[in-house]
């Protein structure tokens, strides 16, 4: 284990001399940092987008899929009987966690946006609504439908699926795009850092030849490159992450009314995710540069 960890030595300590032997490659250095920063910044946004839409989809999927409404339209004298029957059926249905008939007050609230606050709900022959909360497993909608048709002909099951499923699908599509972007950003960053490291190594052919000539071992030469690229990437990614997180934190908070379009921010422990970005970038850079260095070194005796 310790032996394995020794490949990390270039990052921590090590003789400072090994760093001096690699000339500071101005443009490549800046390029690496900038790439890391830009990619980290974009990654933050992609992550935030994925998380926000994830939350959204979860909330919809969770709250809507687990709730359903049964509407009972019947002549005024039958309505109470049918409601009782429906509640009885629901009690026997596996997958139903909780069911209750709505009060006239609630019905009014539901209709208020459409009909105004002065609606005389009591006087209306409105259908009675029964709210159903499903358990984790959910009920068998088809079976319930048939049973209701038999026992309470005025009852209609509406499991909301029809209305909200496309919304959930849309949210999940945006989340997929966010995650796809994240994967792309990761891949592109790894490729860019590898190429930047290769470019730096190729530009330093003379340095590598001179060092091999005077008896430098591969790991001595690789150390300076690996360390430098890892630290540069880390610095760039930290800056990009910080800027991205700041931009997100400063975004106007989502008003509560917005409802289905929640804020794009991170919430609570989710703030730990952005911290993973610089770490991941540094690990990427470490592995990519190390592989590139040893590949280039093998071409020089």
């Amino acid at each position, binding site marked *: 284990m310790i032996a394995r960890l020794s490949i990390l030595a270039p990052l921590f300590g090590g003789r400072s001399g090994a760093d*001096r032997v690699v000339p500071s490659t101005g443009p490549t250095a800046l390029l690496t940092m900038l790439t890391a920063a830009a990619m980290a910044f974009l990654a933050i946004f992609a992550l935030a987008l994925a998380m926000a839409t994830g939350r959204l989809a979860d909330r919809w999927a969770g709250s809507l899929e687990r709730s359903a409404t049964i509407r009972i339209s019947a002549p005024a004298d039958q309505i109470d009987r049918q409601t009782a029957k429906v509640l009885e059926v629901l009690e026997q249905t596996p997958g139903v966690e909780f069911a209750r008939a709505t009060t006239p007050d609630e019905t009014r609230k539901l209709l208020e946006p459409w009909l105004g606050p002065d609606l005389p709900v009591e006087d209306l022959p409105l259908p009675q609504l029964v709210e159903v909360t499903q358990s984790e497993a959910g009920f068998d909608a088809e079976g319930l439908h048939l049973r209701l048709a038999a026992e309470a002909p005025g009852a209609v099951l509406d499991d909301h699926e029809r209305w909200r499923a496309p919304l959930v699908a849309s949210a999940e599509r945006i989340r997929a795009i966010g995650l796809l972007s994240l994967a792309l950003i990761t891949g592109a960053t790894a490729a860019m850092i590898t190429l930047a490291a290769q470019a730096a190594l190729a530009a330093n052919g003379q*340095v590598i030849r001179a060092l*091999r*000539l005077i*008896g430098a071992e591969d790991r001595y030469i690789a150390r300076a490159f690996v360390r430098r690229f890892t630290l540069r990437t880390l610095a760039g990614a930290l800056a990009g992450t910080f800027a991205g997180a700041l931009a997100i934190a400063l975004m106007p908070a989502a008003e509560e009314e917005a409802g289905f379009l929640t804020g794009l921010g991170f919430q609570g422990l989710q703030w730990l995710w952005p911290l993973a970005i610089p770490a991941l970038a540094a690990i990427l850079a470490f592995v990519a540069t190390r592989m590139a260095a040893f590949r280039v070194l093998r071409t020089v005796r």
Partner: protein
Amino acid sequence: MIEFHDVTLGYPGSDLLSGVTMKLAPGSFHFLTGPSGAGKTSLIKLCYGELAPNGGRVEIFGEDSVKMSRDETARMRRRIGIVHQDCQFLDHLPLDENVALPLEVAGQKADGEALTELLTWVGLAGQAQALPPSLSGGERQRAALARAVIMSPDMILADEPTGNVDWDMSLKILKLLAELNRMGKTVLMATHDLNLIRAAKGLTSARVLRIQGKRLQLAGSDL
């Protein structure tokens, strides 16, 4: 120290050496000569493992050069001071750090006083802080020589170390190599300057190897 057993060397399209068998005994001094393009530099590269023979065997300090791992090759080179014909330096480090680099690479501390003395000896004390690209051709060659001897190696391979310096400096360099040889170091020096080889006769008992028609010959007193 270094032994060639029936060594063949060629690049695609051209054969350079064939059937070369030789031995550089510890403490010996050899000149290596031959026309331009004969393979002097290539032969020296065989001696420190930058090139591998196409046939035959090269033994460096008793080990087959092609069987060494890359790290073994690196450690072997710390025992050999090499003056490369192209004087390879790190262009971003000042001259004194370049000269002390073999110590640094081997994990040793450079002795500041000894370094200054060495630079003074090759006439570069005033340029200790200069970057290699700003040095003159002759200065680079002298710096390369200083770097080659700083580790006090068992063996010195010098590829035309006097190509860009005047006669006085050539003699001075020759005298340094002869002195190192008297201290027991093995020396191989490639040169095309026959006058220098003649001048060496009084300094050390050098032998002259000549590459001619892909073969290595021991040149007689016909120089």
